[in-house]
């Protein structure tokens, strides 16, 4: 196994960040985070934060959330021992956290249900969202239908093209889908447009952001609603093996399934975090500190601060920035982040399909590949949990085209 977690509380104090689990402090994760948004949105962010603080301890809210997560969303999700994958890697024991089995087919629901209930509580009449792979849009459309709140989704036209089925799903669920043609016409541009809509309709509209990105308090809210993944993993591994995992692996787009997986373990220094970014969108691996979509964080940009266009086979990882909390984990060495290219991700995609009968989302396939590679360097008695953030049905067309182009099918 690679480097042990090196962050002592001493180091943290020197950086003035205090205990990692207690962040954000004043909306910041060390130097990262903040609220870099137009003035029109600042009061709305303050209202959101106040509303969020009030539901944290609200018994009724939390009970409704729990019931819907279980009865509508299908939680808790299983922790599955991937026997053949483990044999294939030939070393550490590999478990899969099955977020692909959550209603809608991805972890996105965990966050959406929480925020949608919050929107309802705040009396908002309309929900807007951005989406990359379409999974967040689908989850929002689904929950909007269930709660009876109209939903409008912004989606880059490049993503609309490569995630057609999800566009149809959103429409079927009653949401309006607005194509965004600006810039690279992917997730980043969809967020820009959602922010513009929010600034215009801030009095009536709730912006339901889909990852641990954006201005404070969004990265915190999304993390808190996604931490159910890590909380369940903790209970499941303790019950099953009487110990904590040695390694947690997740893919990182904006970083919500990864942070949801990692965060509950942040004070457990024996648990190593491995995030898999798309090689063509590796903001942690290849970016530098910048400000995008309201937060100071690692960003892919050119030398004069223009945001770069990104390229990944998976729409959900095709994003030029990352959640500010990951930027801090990376800076402190609390998390390790590696790049997985399209070809490697595809290998992960096929591997899991053929060895375990589980077709992962192309996003999640990045984590599968990274986890298997790392398992080979670990001991047999060690335990890995790979978060399978979503299922691959949405990607079949992309995968087929990819294989046809290479003559492998």
């Amino acid at each position, binding site marked *: 196994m690679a480097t042990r977690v090196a962050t002592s509380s001493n180091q943290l104090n020197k950086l003035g960040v205090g205990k990692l689990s207690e962040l954000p402090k004043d909306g910041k994760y060390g130097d990262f985070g903040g609220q*870099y948004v137009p*003035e029109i949105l*600042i*009061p709305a962010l303050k209202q959101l934060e106040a509303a969020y603080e009030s539901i944290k301890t609200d018994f009724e809210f939390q009970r409704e959330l729990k019931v819907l997560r279980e009865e509508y969303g299908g939680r808790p999700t299983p922790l599955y021992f991937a026997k053949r994958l483990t044999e294939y890697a030939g070393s550490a024991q590999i478990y899969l956290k099955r977020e692909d089995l959550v209603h809608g087919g991805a972890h996105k629901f965990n966050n959406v249900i929480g925020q949608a209930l919050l929107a309802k509580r705040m009396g908002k009449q309309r929900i807007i969202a951005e989406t990359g792979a379409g999974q967040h849009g689908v989850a929002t459309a689904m929950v909007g239908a269930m709660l009876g709140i109209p939903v409008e989704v912004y989606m880059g036209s490049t993503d609309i093209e490569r995630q057609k089925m999800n566009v149809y799903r959103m429409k079927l669920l009653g949401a309006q889908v607005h194509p965004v043609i600006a810039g690279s016409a992917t997730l980043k541009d969809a967020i820009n447009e959602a922010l513009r809509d929010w600034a215009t309709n801030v009095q009536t509209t709730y912006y339901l952001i889909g990852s641990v990105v954006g201005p404070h308090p969004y990265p915190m809210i999304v993390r808190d609603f996604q931490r159910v993944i890590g909380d369940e993993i903790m209970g499941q591994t303790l019950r099953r093996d009487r110990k904590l995992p040695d390694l947690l692996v997740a893919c990182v787009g904006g970083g919500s399934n990864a942070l949801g997986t990692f965060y509950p373990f942040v004070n457990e220094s024996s648990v190593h975090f491995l995030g898999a970014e798309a090689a063509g969108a590796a903001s942690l691996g290849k970016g530098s500190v910048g400000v995008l979509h*309201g937060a100071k964080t690692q960003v892919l*940009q050119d030398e*004069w601060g223009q945001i770069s266009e990104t390229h990944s086979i998976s729409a959900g990882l095709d994003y030029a920035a990352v959640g500010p909390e990951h930027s801090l984990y990376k800076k402190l060495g609390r998390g390790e982040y590696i790049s997985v290219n399209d070809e490697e991700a595809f290998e992960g995609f096929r591997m899991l399909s053929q060895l375990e009968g589980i077709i992962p989302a192309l996003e999640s396939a990045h984590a599968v590949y990274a986890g298997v590679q790392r398992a080979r360097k670990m001991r047999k008695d060690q335990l890995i949990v790979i978060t399978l953030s979503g299922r691959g049905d949405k990607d079949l067309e992309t995968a087929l085209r990819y294989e046809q182009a290479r003559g492998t099918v």
Partner: protein
Amino acid sequence: MNRLAEQFEQLRTKNEGALVAYLMAGDPDPLRSLEYAMAMEAGGADVIELGLPFSDPIADGPTIQAAGVRAFQSKITMKSFVQIITEFRALSKTPLVVMSYYNPIWKMGEETFLKQIVEAGADGVAIPDLPVEESTNWLNQCRKYHTSRIFFVTPETDDGRAKKIAEQSTGFLYLVPRYGTTGARDELASHTASLIQRVRPLMPAGLPLAVGFGLSNKEQVQTVITAGADAAIVGSALVDKIAQGVSPETLMLFVRELKDGTRRSASAAV
């Protein structure tokens, strides 16, 4: 006193409001954007607001987004941006304010950025995505370089916050009456006058109040000046003309007409 303060002082003695005219640097190319800036000046613009293009302009509507795309197509660089300011300053004493999103400034370093544009002849900077809370270092740098720092107030900003923002602002306070992004609109938000009246008493004496986002014609300029603003900012309506490829003279005439709306004696007659 810097050029911006002097300009507002002079206009006050003439009983005129200021016309702030916006354009995007590099639209349609650096040289022609300089020509357009000069045309605005000649048409009577009292302040030029020069936009630095950014890849992700979240506060801008389609018109200014498109101007940014054209500027990038013209291969504008930070160097040519600074050069436009230098050339403008060699030809004109009219105050110039830079409008830039925060990331290009952050990336270059707040101080390096300011030093360059101030040496070139800029008088102030407005950053639509930098609220006062994130501005501690920026304020210090602006003090150091005697540059006006222009912050924004909106209908959502409550009195306490508006007061705090106004206290940090120099040059002028930028009041945005409309919800949403930049872009020319046929109608002025109905609460514009009451918003001006609400914000004015919260401001330090002598700080000019400028109203912008959505103003597109002389009547609207007149309305905000009559309602008590010290300046009217026109952006998208001018950028629309540039997008149509009008001659600098045509732009000049349009600016002249807008400028007419700032004369209080004239507006009283309407």
